[in-house]
């Protein structure tokens, strides 16, 4: 076992996947708490599909690096938040329209430009195909997200739990909502390389949901969410390597198991 673990880390591709994954799952779980509480869970899923469309566009026209998809998804995220409030098409319907629309557009683009073998990669992720530059981008972006999250932690907390009061006490609520939206877009785009468009929202949503089953305070919930996310990622990655399973699915199954466990613990605690 020990020998195999050492051997795993002798592969560059595994080390890259491990480092990038730790960073991304950590920052995803932080933002996840706010997305779940603000009832924005589906937005992550919708943005991932927009990301798929954006990746298809960059792959079809000219193979371009990850960060080209970033501004497209970022703009989509801000628009989704803005339009949600004013649009006549309400919340979930709007997300469904945008996500299926960009999925269709992406598929057409990929087929028309004959890069169909990329479809699988974008749908389900390609964690072991990361390069050194991907790892650097992931680490830098994640560190920025974590730093911003810590700096604005108290304000983000208030904007998340009580928007009205935040507004009344002079906090620029829409500024913080935009910040959360943009950071979410960043993490979705980065995470798509790991988990793929179909599974990335699970990485964002599961850890906070699990930790909220057990913990009552915000600080504890955020901390535990981060811990769950990193642990599940590591465990999932090891399973993937040992049993040659799809990585995204493995990581998500770990999260699902933890969610079930925490739900049980929460139930027992409530009775006790």
């Amino acid at each position, binding site marked *: 076992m020990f020998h195999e673990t050492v051997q795993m880390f002798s592969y560059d591709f595994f080390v890259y996947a491990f480092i990038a994954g730790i960073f991304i799952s950590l920052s995803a779980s932080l933002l996840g708490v706010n997305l779940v*509480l603000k009832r924005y869970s589906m937005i992550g899923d919708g943005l991932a599909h927009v990301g798929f469309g954006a990746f298809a566009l960059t792959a079809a026209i000219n193979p371009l690096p990850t960060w080209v998809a970033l501004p497209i998804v970022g703009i989509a995220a801000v628009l989704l938040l803005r339009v949600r409030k004013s649009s006549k098409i309400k919340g979930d319907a709007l997300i469904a329209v945008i996500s299926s629309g960009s999925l269709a557009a992406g598929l057409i683009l990929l087929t028309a430009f004959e890069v169909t073998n990329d479809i699988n990669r974008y749908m389900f992720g390609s964690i072991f195909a990361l390069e050194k530059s991907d790892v650097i981008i992931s680490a830098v972006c994640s560190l920025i997200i974590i730093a911003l999250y*810590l*700096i*604005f*932690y*108290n*304000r983000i*907390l*208030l904007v998340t*739990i*009580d928007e*009205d*009061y935040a*507004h*009344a*006490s*002079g*906090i620029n609520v829409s500024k913080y909502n935009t910040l959360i939206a943009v950071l979410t877009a960043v993490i979705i785009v980065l995470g798509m390389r790991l988990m793929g468009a179909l599974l990335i929202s699970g990485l964002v949503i599961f850890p906070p949901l699990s*930790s*909220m089953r057990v*913990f*009552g*305070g*915000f*600080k*504890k*919930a955020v901390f535990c969410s981060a811990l769950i996310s990193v642990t599940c990622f590591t465990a999932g990655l090891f399973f993937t390597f040992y049993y040659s399973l799809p990585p995204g699915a493995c990581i998500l199954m770990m999260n699902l198991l933890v969610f079930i466990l925490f739900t049980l613990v929460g139930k027992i605690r409530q009775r006790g």
Partner: protein
Amino acid sequence: MFYTLNMRIIKCENLCMSYENKTVLSELSFNVERGDFLSIVGENGSGKSTLIRGILGLKKYKGVLELNVGRNQIGYLPQQTALAEDFPVTAGEIVLCGCLNDMGLFPFYKKKHRETAIDALKKMRVLELEKRRFCELSGGQKQRVLIARAICAAKELLLLDEPATGLDLAVRNELYELISSLNKNDGLTVVMISHDMEGVLANSDKILHVSAISKAAEAVNSDKTLENGSTKNKGGFFGTVAEYIKTPIFMEMGCNNVP
């Protein structure tokens, strides 16, 4: 603080506001001076909460509505909080939010903020609830926690939207004592919406009666007020408590428990 002793905190002239496309306040005029304890009374749906939300800049209005204190000087107790059931946040964390307006650019709470929060929890007698999950608390406990948050935030002005809701009589009286002391001893200006006429008359020094079809009073000048007030249903009232209890609006309510 002495040099600003008679500063006008809120100036409101010919204010018109609507709620869900229905005009609830029209041509409302009143002033709040530093150190005032103003109670806003009136039947349900007359626009009291809408007025407070207008003062806080949460709602649009027509007319003049000047607020001469910074938003970071105000403690606000909303009528109801839209905190959902599953929110993982403790009572202590909620109260600490009241100190946010004092942090400036520094991202974290300092020791004095924690002390302020503990102090406010003590004042509201809910210190033992500090670590409890907010959504597990009873209605009255939630109300006290939210009042504690407002107290933390209030440096100049305390805006309370029906603070007595959900509190039993003993706690209610304690609350009035506390607010009175904040007003008299700490010099906080208090604006309170209330349906509890007894508490209002005993504690406040000015009254704003908002009527559903408010053609409310021309402030300060009491003669004029009485004139306007005497136009029965149409009228509202703004003036001191002593003047208020002589008005037809007040007498019509059949309130005999004048202190």
